[in-house]
C-alpha cells in the first residue's frame, strides 16, 4: 500500500528507496496510478509492479501507467474510491467482509455477491490487507504516533492500520510528549517504522475533468 491522493501525501522518498531495494512482482494499492515520472510512476516505470488496485488510474500525467496498461504489462483492479477506502479500513479493523451500496447494478459489481437489505441493493466486498504500507505524515514520535498535514492525510491512517508493517516518512521526528495526545491522528500501535525526511510536497499539474 502506498498513501497519497495524486502527489498529496505520496511518500516519494520511500518509493525511491523501494526502487533501490529491488523488490519486484509487487501488488500496489493506491488511489491513482502515478503522476509524471516520480514516486509511484517511477516504480511502475522500473517494471516492479505486477498489479495495481486503484480507483482513478487515468490522469493527465499518468502516461507511464497508460503505456504499461495498453501494452498489457500491468494488471488493473478498478475499485470505486469509497469501496477502496472501506476495504482498507475493514482490513485494519478485522472485518471479514461488508455489504456496500456503492457500485450496485454497475459493471464494477459484476460477478460479486449482492443482497437486498431493507429494500436497498448492496454488494459484498472483502478487505484489502498489505504486507507493507508506505505513508507520509507531518510529524511522528518514537512510539509511532502520527499527525498529518491538511489533505495529505487522505489514505495514511487507514493504510497504516491495514499493513503488517507500516513505514511512515515524516517531515519531523519529535520527542515523546510533543504531540498533543488529544490531536494524534494515527496512534503508534498502527506504525512500525518512522523515518524523518524533511522535504516539501509537490503539486500535480491540473487534471482533466473526469
Amino acid at each position, binding site marked *: 500500500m502506498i498513501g497519497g491522493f495524486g502527489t498529496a*501525501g505520496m511518500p516519494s522518498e520511500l518509493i525511491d528507496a523501494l526502487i533501490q531495494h529491488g523488490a519486484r512482482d509487487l501488488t500496489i494499492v493506491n488511489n491513482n496510478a502515478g503522476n509524471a515520472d516520480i514516486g509511484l510512476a517511477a516504480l511502475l516505470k522500473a517494471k516492479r509492479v505486477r498489479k495495481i488496485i486503484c480507483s482513478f488510474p487515468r490522469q493527465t500525467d499518468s502516461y507511464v501507467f497508460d503505456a504499461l496498461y495498453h501494452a498489457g504489462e500491468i494488471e488493473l483492479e478498478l475499485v470505486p*474510491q469509497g469501496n477502496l477506502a*472501506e476495504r482498507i479500513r475493514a482490513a485494519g479493523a478485522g472485518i471479514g467482509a461488508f455489504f456496500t451500496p456503492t*457500485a*450496485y447494478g454497475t*459493471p464494477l459489481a459484476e460477478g460479486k455477491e449482492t443482497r437486498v437489505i431493507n429494500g436497498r441493493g448492496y454488494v459484498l466486498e472483502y478487505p484489502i490487507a498489505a504486507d507493507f504500507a508506505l505513508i507520509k505524515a507531518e510529524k511522528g514520535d518514537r512510539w509511532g504516533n502520527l499527525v498529518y498535514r491538511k489533505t495529505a492525510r487522505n489514505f495514511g491512517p487507514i493504510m497504516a492500520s491495514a499493513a503488517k508493517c507500516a513505514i511512515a516518512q515524516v517531515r519531523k521526528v519529535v520527542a515523546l510528549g510533543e504531540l498533543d495526545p488529544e490531536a494524534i491522528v494515527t496512534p503508534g500501535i498502527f506504525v512500525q517504522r518512522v523515518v524523518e525526511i524533511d522535504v516539501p510536497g509537490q*503539486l*500535480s499539474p491540473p487534471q482533466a475533468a473526469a
Partner: protein
Amino acid sequence: MKRFTRDQMAARVARDIPEGAYVNLGIGLPTMVANHLPKEREIFLHSENGLLGMGPAPAAGAEDPDLINAGKQPVTLLIGGAYFHHADSFAMMRGGHLDICVLGAFQVSAKGDLANWHTGAPDAIPAVGGAMDLAIGAKKVYVMMELLTKQGESKLVAECSYPVTGVNCVNRVFTDHGVFDVTPNGFVVREIIEGLSFDELQKLAQVPLTFEPLEAASTLEA
C-alpha cells in the same frame, strides 16, 4: 438556438442549494457552481480527499501542495473547516450525510440511472474515483450537463447505453435548455429557458416528457 451558457447553468444549480447545505461538487462542469453560490448563504463544500469547508483557489504563489481538491487543484480552507482521512470522508458520502451532490453526466435515464464514469470504449482506461459513492450516497443527486451531445443526440434517455455509475439515483437534471426532475412517471420538465416551447424541447429531448412547472417560491424544494 438560444440556450444557457455554462455559467448560466452553474448559476441556476446554485439557486437550488439552500442555506446550511453540505454539498459535494463533482470534477469538471459542476466545479463552476462554487462561483455562483449566493454570498449570504452559509454552504459547506465537501471534497472527497478529506476536507469540509473548502474555500476558493488561493492567490498565485500561495498554493500549498498539501491542500488540494478532488481534481488535484490547489484550494483553500475556510475558517471553521476540517480535515479528515479517506474512510471518514467516504462515510460522509456513503452514509447519507451530504445534502446534495452535483455531478456531470454522459446520460441520465428516465428511471434516474446515471452514466458518467466510462464511455465503454474498449481501449479506454477505466477510472471511477468517487463517482459511484456520490451517486448512491448523497440525499439529493443533481446532474449538470448539456442536453445534447455534439452530434445532437439527447443525453436524457430511456435506458443508458453507457455503463452506469448508479441505478435510480438522480433527482434533478439541470441543462442548457431547461430543468428536469426524475419521477416515477419519467422526466418532468420544471423549467424551460426563455424562447423555447415545450414542443420544441420535447423534440430535442427525444424521450417522453411531461410539463409541470415549479412555482417560483418552491424551486428550492425538489
